[in-house]
């Protein structure tokens, strides 16, 4: 009889979860809540970590491998750490590249200045690269689009740059574009190189995984101070911060793509007589192109999503304008800048895809003029528009609208957005207010209390138990180790608040995503539509809705959570659509033939089959949510995020604290990731997918 029960427990996961829950509740109830009780809170044995980390960072900055550097102004040798000199030279190179692209389009003399003396430049003030008139640039974008992908892309490029120009965002857009145009290829090259390395060497891949996980999940604000210290302030620093977060998906996609290549294709390349180089560049990389392009797409999206944060460390452009607009509560103005960011993302994405898919025509037999038709048109239009603009110099007294339309003089629809925000505010305020009250007092308040009232022993038992049931002993130890690491710092209570907010937002966002995704995934057109909406929200800077949510929900946890839910619904929706679309049509048909209703088909066939994919979406939702909950510190929170932001201004121990806390956030995300991935894999296996 006894043995029977054991068997049931051994074979039934629900039973195991049930028992785990009972143990958890038991611990929750009976462990006394007093300091000094190690079952209630662990001692902060790891409190030294932030301090040590800080020492290491500063040692790297100022002490390690000192070099004697001659200072021509002070006429003496100074000791400077090699590492910082190294990072400084990287900064110099990056800044040069960004400035180069920027001046190519906007004009200026900074690049020339590098090569000639100040005095000479002053005497020869004609020595300045001329600005490209926005009219010519629009023609250029149109032609480039045409060359790459025909009339549709031409329209996209042309209308896009026309919009940006006449709405007065030309200069900041080019600043942002130059930032992205340099950062994306760097991420691409780095990602591709590491991806190839990881593909060739299994050990490297294994070593890369945890590093990539941390890079992708660490809140960006946690490493802004070290970046300033190492790389300084400016566009290059923003670029570095972006590279940290945008390279990992590129690496992952490269490895994934290369691994998916059938061995036969490799052999075919070898038998064609490829050298190693040829095999890599002519066979492997092009064959993995789909996944690599997905990686590039992600890199572009990430670069543009990072534009605002990059402006915290000195990047100019739309991000900075957006931030300044938000400070004076000009939501419309900020949203306009946000739209430009999305527009740039869309154009870059479509253009790179078209470029990668471009076909060579071997049979064309063109005259010189035909071959260089577009370039000639472009050159002519630059000439014409420059001359026109130059002549117009006499006509306009202050601002030459034919070169650049400045932001205050451009068209604007900001007041419509402001009016819309006001309308939402006026219309929904009272109902939202009572909703907010209910949520805070009935749901969030008690939930927060419950989380904070959790003895550490109970929390660890629960998380490790779930990990054990789903993934076995290794997963259990891994997750346990990560949680223990957080629990033994003095920030456990803060971490609990972060967890409470994240849990709530993840549940809500996942539900939203699954429902919205399911509705739109019913038709192909719906799927396409909702996926582009997802693209929009992923690149539209989330900073923009931090302020309106304060209008609606005050400075409370609700505001933070609403912002987080809006942002984190994106991946849940996206993956739901992907998952549902990948359900084979034969199963739809089989379902229909067995006479199930649409609802039954959804619950009994589609959702279970799409479940593993949806779970991966939930995984992403966790990462997105944590990012936004941490960003919620800009509204006002009492969790890890508040301390991470606080640490920005603390030179003494700031960097160490920020990175440690950032790491905690990473570890939370990774714990969930480990469990969910395992679960999804198992479900996939059980369903016979893949």
């Amino acid at each position, binding site marked *: 009889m006894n043995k029977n029960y054991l068997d049931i427990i051994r074979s039934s996961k629900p039973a195991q979860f049930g028992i785990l829950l009972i143990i958890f509740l038991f611990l929750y109830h009976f462990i006394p809540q007093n300091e000094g009780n190690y079952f209630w809170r662990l001692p902060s044995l790891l409190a030294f970590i932030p301090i040590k980390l800080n020492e290491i960072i500063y040692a790297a900055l100022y002490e390690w491998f000192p070099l004697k550097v001659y200072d021509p*102004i*002070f006429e003496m040798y100074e000791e400077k750490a090699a590492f910082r000199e190294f990072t400084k030279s990287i900064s*110099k*190179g990056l800044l*040069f*590249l960004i400035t*180069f692209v920027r001046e190519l389009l906007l004009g200026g003399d900074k*690049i020339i200045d*590098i*090569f*000639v*003396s*100040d005095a000479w430049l002053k005497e020869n003030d004609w020595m300045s690269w001329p600005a490209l008139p926005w009219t010519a640039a629009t023609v250029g974008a149109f032609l480039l689009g045409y060359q790459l992908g025909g009339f549709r892309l031409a329209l996209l490029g042309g209308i896009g740059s026309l919009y940006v120009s006449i709405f007065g965002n030309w200069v900041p857009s080019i600043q942002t574009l130059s930032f992205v145009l340099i950062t994306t290829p760097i991420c691409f090259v780095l990602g591709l190189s590491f991806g190839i390395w990881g593909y060739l060497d299994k050990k490297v891949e294994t070593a890369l995984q945890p590093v990539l996980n941390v890079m992708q999940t660490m809140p960006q604000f946690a490493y*802004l*101070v070290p970046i*300033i*210290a190492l790389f*300084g*302030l400016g566009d290059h620093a923003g670029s570095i911060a972006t590279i940290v977060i945008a390279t990992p998906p590129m690496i992952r996609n490269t490895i994934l793509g290369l691994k998916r290549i059938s061995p036969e294709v490799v052999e075919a390349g070898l038998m064609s007589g490829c050298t190693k180089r040829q095999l890599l560049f002519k066979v492997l990389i092009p064959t993995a192109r789909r996944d690599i392009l997905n990686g590039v797409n992600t890199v572009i999206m990430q670069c543009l999503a990072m534009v605002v944060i990059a*402006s*915290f*460390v*000195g*990047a*100019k452009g739309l991000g*900075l304008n957006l*931030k*300044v607009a938000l*400070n*004076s*509560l000009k939501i419309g103005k900020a949203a306009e800048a946000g739209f430009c960011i999305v527009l740039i993302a869309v154009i870059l994405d479509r253009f790179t895809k078209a470029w990668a898919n471009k076909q060579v025509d071997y049979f064309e037999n063109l005259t010189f003029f035909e071959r260089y038709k577009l370039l000639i048109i472009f050159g002519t239009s630059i000439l014409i528009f420059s001359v026109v603009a130059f002549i117009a110099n006499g006509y306009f007294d202050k601002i030459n609208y034919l070169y650049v339309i400045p932001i*205050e003089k451009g068209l604007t629809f900001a007041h419509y957005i402001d009016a819309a925000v006001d309308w939402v*505010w006026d219309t929904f305020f009272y109902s939202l207010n009572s909703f*907010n*009250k209910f*949520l*805070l007092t009935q749901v*969030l*308040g008690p939930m927060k209390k419950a989380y904070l009232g959790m003895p550490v022993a109970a929390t660890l038992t629960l998380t490790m138990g779930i990990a054990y049931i789903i993934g076995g002993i290794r997963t259990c130890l891994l997750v346990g180790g990560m949680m223990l690491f957080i629990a033994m710092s003095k920030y456990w209570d803060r971490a609990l608040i972060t967890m409470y907010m994240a849990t709530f937002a993840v549940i809500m966002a996942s539900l939203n995503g699954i429902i919205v995704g399911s509705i739109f995934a019913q038709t192909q057109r719906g799927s396409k539509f909702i996926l582009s909406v997802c693209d929009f929200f992923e690149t539209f800077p989330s900073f923009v809705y*931090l302020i309106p949510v*304060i209008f609606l929900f*005050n*400075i*409370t*946890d609700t505001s933070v959570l609403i912002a987080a839910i809006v942002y984190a619904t994106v991946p849940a929706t996206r993956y739901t659509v992907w998952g549902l679309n990948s359900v084979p049509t034969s199963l739809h048909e089989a379902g229909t033939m067995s006479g199930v209703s649409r609802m039954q088909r959804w619950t009994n066939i589609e959702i279970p089959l799409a479940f593993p994919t949806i779970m991966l979406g939930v995984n992403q939702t966790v990462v997105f949510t944590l990012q936004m909950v941490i960003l*919620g*510190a*800009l*509204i*006002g*929170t*009492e969790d890890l995020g*508040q301390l991470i*932001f*606080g640490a*920005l*201004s603390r*030179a*003494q121990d*700031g960097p160490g604290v920020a990175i440690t806390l950032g790491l905690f956030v990473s570890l939370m995300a990774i714990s969930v990731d480990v469990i969910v991935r395992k679960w999804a894999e198992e479900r996939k296996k059980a369903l016979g997918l893949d």
Partner: protein
Amino acid sequence: MKKLLSLFYTLVLLAGLSTVAKAADPIRIPVLNWSSQIVMANVMAQAFEELGYEAELVPAESATRYEAVRVGELHVAHETWESTMALPFYAAMDKGGLIDAGSHDLITFEEMGVPNWVIEEGLCPGLPSWEALKSPECAANFATPDSEGKGRWLEGPYEWHTEVMPNRLKGLGIDDLWMVKFAGTADALWAELEAAKKEGRGTIIFNWSPNFTDAAGFTFIDFPPYFEGCRLENGGTLETTGCGSPKGWLKKAAHIKFPITHTSAYKFYTKMEFTAPNIGEMANYVDNEGMTHAEAATAYIANNRDQIDLFMK
């Protein structure tokens, strides 16, 4: 294409190796996210250029810029408020690399207060005296759903004054009626003020003077007077820690090498002492007259030529 690329590489390489003598690096001035600060940065940039320097405006963050000044990434930090920025300012100075380049010609005051309609509507009779806060009816008018029935004080970010406000509530003996909520940023404070204004509801928030963002219609609460060492963290007692805020300075910080590398610019910088009306004028050009920050700076210099000339002497 290949030729173009190799030309480009050569250019990059040349840039790295370039040893053309430069008189001095461009002076790097931080640009933060509020108008008066950005216009002042532009005024300085234009003045420095007049003095023969190059100037560069660098987007920065108010919290991180002292570290940037300390390591020499920025040459100046020209708007340093005592109450909110003194901590990172002095921390950077202690670590070495940042120097104090004097103060502007104005007195700052940063304190908890209420929008005027709060007084007009009688939401808390007796304001602006802090004694009014002792009334439970008053506190109830400032409660929010997450304040557990207490009235809410909306403080600035925690790192601005850490425990000062919670301690003050304890010192005044009203911590059973009021609680402190920390906003994340100045932006969040303005959003709250805007929201409260629209709804006409009561709010007690942290604000400062001169404030060029929302100058009109705000009243600071009168707390017991400040004196040296009244606060708990400066050696005060629970009885004295209810004291209000001190009058403060608006300082200018500079990188330690700035006086040597850009001598006459530094001289200008130390002499540059703007008054509250000056700074108000700068903000006004942008916020109300719709100029760009650079135009506003030009307009300001044109309008106050004597003052700038005086700084330049």
